[in-house]
């Protein structure tokens, strides 16, 4: 076989960090981030998550739509091997510890180890390249995932989060529960799993990230041994156009919680295109969230001192491939009161924006958080992967952050907050929710 593997070096002198980009002959991009820690951490990931439920490749006669929760179901099922040898055990035998996760835009398989790196890497590439789905093992998983769904349903923060997404979005698929529902996963069959696997688990749609004490030659050697050469295949993914306004403004569910939990969301109506611009925009909104609602601001401290909020309150900004929103959530006896104070704060900041000094402090804070990422192999690899799939180079994030200006902040505060883009979900204690009309 002709080997066309190419290696490129990327450096950031200020940070003292670098990585190798290996364009492997198989079609898989590999990123090796050297780090002198005893744990090496690897991630083998595909751009495939709960958002990808409608797609088409040139092998499909028409657009394919699959049940909710199938990407996550597939992740569970990848641990099953034809020879019956348990994948966790294969890793455990050589002292590596394996796991996996599915989000709305990716599925990632990971391991960490202190020894036997290349053996572990071989197992990782091997098992993800070899699906084995049968009627029997699919049925078994429906039981396990059914319990996972129930566990998540009992988690009030998670319920709150999805209630909010359902308020914010009319059609955007980000509101689909990653695990699916008991009903949707009951429709999953081995045939559907193979179809999704064959579409999304193609090397050109994937990436391998290794962070720790690893050598390029030996990583390439393992990839040469395990990976077939796969030509690029185009995947068309179908998304629905999302209106600018929220779907609904309030939702309230009753659960067994001590005090009401609230989540206020502010929908971002920007066109998400990926790459540096989206990253810069996300950093800008995170800084705005900090300046308006963070621990050094007037709003939070007044609300804390009055007992309206406690230290469970958090302000952040979340973005996916297709959408973004600012999230303000916590516990409060009176969520409507908190909501009105939030709106008041927004209006006030549009009249009197935060000072430049506040902006500089927020910037320092985000810069420090960025530096801290580099203190653990799993931290670096996960950040790197997220950035990579978003079209951003992690080593450039510091520069992107520096490029955000005070003027950007002032303009975005005017632009971002609109009444018709705000909603609030509440999880209330059962005694209060029961029989109550709203």
């Amino acid at each position, binding site marked *: 076989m002709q080997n066309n593997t190419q290696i490129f070096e990327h450096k950031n002198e200020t940070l003292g960090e670098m990585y190798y980009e290996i364009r492997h002959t198989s079609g898989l991009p590999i990123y090796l981030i050297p780090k002198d820690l005893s744990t090496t951490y690897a991630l083998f990931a595909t751009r495939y998550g709960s958002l990808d439920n409608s797609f088409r490749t040139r092998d499909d006669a028409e657009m394919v739509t699959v049940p909710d929760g199938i990407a996550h179901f597939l992740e569970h099922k990848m641990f099953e091997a034809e020879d019956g040898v348990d994948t966790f055990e294969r890793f*455990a035998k050589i002292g590596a510890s394996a796991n996996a996760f599915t989000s709305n835009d990716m599925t990632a398989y990971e391991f960490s180890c*202190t020894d036997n790196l290349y053996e572990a890497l071989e197992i990782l590439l091997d098992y993800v390249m070899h699906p084995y789905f049968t009627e029997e093992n699919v049925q078994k998983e429906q039981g396990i995932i059914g319990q996972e769904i129930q*566990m998540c349903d009992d988690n009030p923060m998670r319920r709150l989060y999805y209630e909010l997404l359902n308020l914010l979005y009319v059609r955007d698929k980000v509101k689909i529960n990653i695990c699916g529902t008991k009903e949707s996963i009951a429709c999953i069959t081995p045939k559907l799993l193979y179809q999704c696997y064959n579409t999304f688990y193609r090397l050109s749609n994937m990436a391998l990230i290794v962070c720790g004490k690893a050598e390029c030659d030996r990583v390439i050697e393992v990839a040469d041994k395990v990976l077939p050469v796969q030509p690029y295949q185009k995947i068309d993914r179908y998304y629905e156009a999302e*209106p600018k306004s929220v779907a609904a403004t309030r*939702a309230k569910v009753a659960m*067994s919680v*001590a005090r009401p939990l609230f989540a206020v969301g502010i929908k971002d109506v920007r066109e998400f295109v990926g790459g540096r611009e989206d990253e810069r925009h996300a950093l800008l909104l995170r800084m705005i969230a900090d300046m308006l609602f963070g621990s050094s601001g007037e709003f939070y401290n007044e609300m804390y*001192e009055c007992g309206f909020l406690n230290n469970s309150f958090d302000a952040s900004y979340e973005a996916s491939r297709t959408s973004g929103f600012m999230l303000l959530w916590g516990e409060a006896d009176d969520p409507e009161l908190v909501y009105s104070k939030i709106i008041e704060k927004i209006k006030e900041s549009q009249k009197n924006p935060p000072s430049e000094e506040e902006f500089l402090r927020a910037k320092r804070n985000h810069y420090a958080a960025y530096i801290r990422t580099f203190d*653990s192999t799993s931290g670096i690899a996960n950040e790197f992967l997220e950035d990579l799939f978003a079209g951003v180079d992690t080593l450039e994030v510091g520069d992107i952050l520096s490029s955000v200006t005070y003027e950007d902040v002032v303009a975005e505060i005017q632009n971002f907050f609109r009444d018709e883009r705000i909603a609030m979900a509440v999880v209330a204690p059962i005694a209060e929710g029961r029989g109550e009309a709203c």
Partner: protein
Amino acid sequence: MPLYRKDLGRGVFYNHIQTDVFKTSSFSVNFVVPHRRETAAVYAVLPMVLHRGCRAYPDRRAISRRLEELYGAALSVRSYKRGELRVINFTVNTIDNTYLPKDEQIDLFKEVLSLLSDLLLDPVLEDGHFLVSYTESEIRNCKDTIRAAINNKTRYAFDRCVELMFEGEHYGVPSDGYIEDYDGITQQDLTAAYRSMLEEARVEVFYGGKESPEKVEPFAQSFFEKVNRKTDGHLPDTVVSSEVKKIRHFDESTPAEQGKLVIGFRTPITANHRDAVTFAVFNEIFGGSASSKLFMNVREKMSLCYSCSSVGDTTKGALIAYAGIDNENKQTTINEILKQLDNIRQNVITDEELHCAKQSLASAYQSLVDSVSSLEVWYLRRILCGYKEEPEDVIERVHTISKDEVAAVSKTVNLDTIYFLKGDKSALYSAADCTEENEDAE
């Protein structure tokens, strides 16, 4: 990297972990006191009140601003139970000066230590006592935290089992005590607890980062110079009671989809016991990892649950197994968990299970050095439990352990308490959910 440890006298100890692999440095002060019902509540409130302000930075906002000025320095304040001891921990962490802009003159580490010193030693006082407003609001927050425990059903069931199982022992007192114990806390109580923490608690100071002990130790020295320390730092031992008088069953219920099963066992094996490492291997095989008997059987073979695991607490001699299940599978799951324990007792352990358990533990110990905070937690535990081994010694010992030893250790593990938090679906669905439509959508 071995620990440099020095007795600074009067119950204050300095611990230094020197490493140059990180971009940050951390410094922490741990006050260690006995964990008792009488003081649990006041010691939960105290660090929260200290976190509210000092004379130089009199409120939370001023503190947060200062931390941001110091390039996102982090301050964390925690108070937790370790066996029958309580640790009140204040940690500061900063990025290294290397990563600051070239023209920046500030010495981050020195500045953040000065902030920590202010918070601990120079709080905002009025007539010699903490501010009433700070005290009242933090008492309310602590009570809210205790009430909010039910929000996380898994954690709640776990803690509830421990509380019921160790009823009458200090270990059974919840980490933050009981809600009713907060009502009587006066300004005087809080001030007295503060003085007692400063003057009588054992103090363990930790540093982790690039600097040498010569540079950092004087800071630790100076911290307690002005405090009138009245102790040699002696702490009472945790009482180990491995005998089971009667197996007890508890059933409670909460509105939820899923039931939570928690099974508590007692063992005489604690962290400084000669079989401590064997116990760790045993737990890996039983329910401590994804290749354990519980995971492989209760989850993978029987499909009863998504999560099923076990965790040992060798500060007390406890082993707790856990599963999130459908209510109707309660007895099947109990039987299977006990059957797996029985298998280990009968030496039904494969070579692979033993091998995997050893590898997994060795790897966990090797990776301790990758995080200053994990090392600190590990060393503090070692200091408080009174054993001497370094992580490398433990790894060496792990590799020598035989199946017979594991089986022998498993026979010391005795079933004590079966706790079940039933998921009451009917209560869940009778509650009203509603959504308010936004007529302007689209």
